[in-house]
């Protein structure tokens, strides 16, 4: 199976050139297959978010190579990185879910609007389908801040799927939700993964949820620990 992402020797230092320079990631090698649903676990401060930001092209590694859908991203310029990010990757964040100035529907339209510049009927239809998919059609025209946290996170998932990315990155997507909502959000992602074949890389502190993933990767002190944590339905 082809790799959605492949990391080779990824290192990341903060405050490069300053006395406070610290290396946070020390040579990460990792690959995600197409359609894989992977949990990223590890203690606080171990570098999970840093790794996710690098995979998501929000941040650049200090050294090492990142392949996305087989393409080496090292030499890509700012504009190309931005375009690739918009098209190949969807994000779901823990805290700030949606843009408050827009409705749920408009939030889902946004990635397509950013990509194409002008709104059109096709993207509005697609956003409607996605909202329907996550079960939030009736909240379509509500301002993003006027719906519950779990619902917001489901809209965020619909939005992450708008450009039909090959990979969705989620940094503690259920960290701020009660266990029922967390379960619903997790199951939604799992269903999308099954039905659409989208790969997921999810940071979570919740072992129960992690064990319902295909694979668990543990990061400790900026290195992949290599410890095998069994999942419930390892394929």
């Amino acid at each position, binding site marked *: 199976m082809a790799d959605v992402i492949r990391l080779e020797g990824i290192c990341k230092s903060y405050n490069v050139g300053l006395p406070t320079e610290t290396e946070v990631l020390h040579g990460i090698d990792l690959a995600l297959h197409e359609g894989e649903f992977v949990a990223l676990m590890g203690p606080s401060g171990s570098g999970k978010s840093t790794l996710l930001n690098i995979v998501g092209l929000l941040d650049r590694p200090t050294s090492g190579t990142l392949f996305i859908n087989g393409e080496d991203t090292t030499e890509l310029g700012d504009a190309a990185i931005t375009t690739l990010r918009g098209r190949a990757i969807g*994000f779901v964040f823990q805290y700030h879910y949606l843009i408050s100035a827009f409705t749920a529907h408009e939030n889902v339209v946004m990635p397509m609007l950013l990509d194409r510049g002008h709104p059109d009927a096709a993207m509005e239809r697609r956003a409607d389908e996605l909202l329907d998919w996550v079960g939030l059609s009736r909240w379509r025209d509500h301002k993003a801040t006027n719906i519950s946290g779990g619902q917001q996170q489901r809209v965020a998932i619909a939005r992450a799927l708008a450009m039909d990315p090959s990979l969705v990155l989620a940094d503690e997507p259920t960290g701020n939700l009660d266990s029922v909502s967390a379960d619903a959000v997790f199951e939604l992602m799992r269903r999308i993964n099954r039905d659409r074949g989208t790969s997921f890389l999810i940071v979570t502190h919740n072992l129960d949820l992690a064990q319902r993933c295909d694979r668990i990767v543990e990061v400790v002190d900026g290195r992949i620990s290599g410890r095998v944590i069994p999942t419930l339905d390892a394929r």
Partner: protein
Amino acid sequence: MRRWLPFEWIAALRFLAEGRMQTGFILGGIAIGVAVIVFMSAMLSGLQANFIKRVLTSQPQIQLIPPDEVARPLRGGPHEIEAAIVQRPSQRILSIDQWRTIREAMTARADVVTVSPSVSGAGLAVRGSAGRSVTLTGIEPEHYFRIVRVPDYIVQGETRLGTDDILIGTELANDLGVTLGDRMHVTTAQGGDRVLTIRGIFDLGNKGANQRSTFVALRTAQSLFNLIGGVTSIDMTVKDIYAAETIAREISASLPVQADSWIKTNAQFFTAVRAQQNSNTLIRLFVGLSVAFGIAAVLIVSVIQRSKDIGILRAMGARKGQILRVFLIQGGVLGFFGSLVGSAMGAGALVLWHSVARQADGSELFPLILSPGLFVVATLIATVTGVGAGTAPALRAAGLDPVEAIRG
């Protein structure tokens, strides 16, 4: 979402609409600034136009008079001065040399509209035991009235001038106790002495002028001042009133006359206007600056408030340029709508002030000039200022590190 709007406009308008309070306050600030500028500019140009109109209907734009008589020391031989004390001669009533030739030359000029020779000097108007010193101006009505519109100011009688007729002002008529059709004695230091009939009474809107100014036929004045065949001045109007000074200099240089333009005779007014304009420009500049700072401050705050939104947008594939334009557009939109409201406010204040502020005699203080150009320029400048003020916040927004913006 409006289908025809690009992302940048949609986001800019949405952000402005969401920050209703901030948007409202800054719009108010811009509007007041623009209103002040519009009000001041329109009133100043109104006052100026009013003054110029008044000057131009009561004064010649160029007046030709005989050159000053200059006294020279008397010399016996090359190095010998006989009388060393030089006294400035009293300026007698003098005719312009060759005035008919000069008149023809003036009439032939393409940039000159009206040419009117006249004779003027001091005289004494006597009626019974009452006497007043007056300025007698002898004119050719068909020419002179095109320069100074005495007919517009006639309150009684008419402006036809026979050789034994005179036009006087309302104050003089009061002082002497005379009315239309009365006769009065006019004498001059040159030995002139005539009895003239009052043909018309005018009100030039100025007490001094109504007391002293009188008009008679050119021939009558020539005989009163013992200046048969001569004139003391040639009055003219020109096509371009602002070229008057240049034309006057040209005439002075090429003909044996002294030419004074209205610009020179009203130099004080122009100095005052220039000072006004300078302070006006300064005020405009500072009002504009404070408006710009206001816009920039509001947008900076907005950038900080929305840094997470910006981070998310960037994560979703928004390019730096798109984010930049979102905030530039906000600046421009604020400037544009603020100046629309401000223009309306300024115009309203102007109309109000125009109806309230009156001169002592109840006439308008300044003409109401609401030129569309002023509003177009104000709106344009405000919009550009808004975009300019948005630059710093926009750059800051575009430069936001999405990782920093999203964290926590």
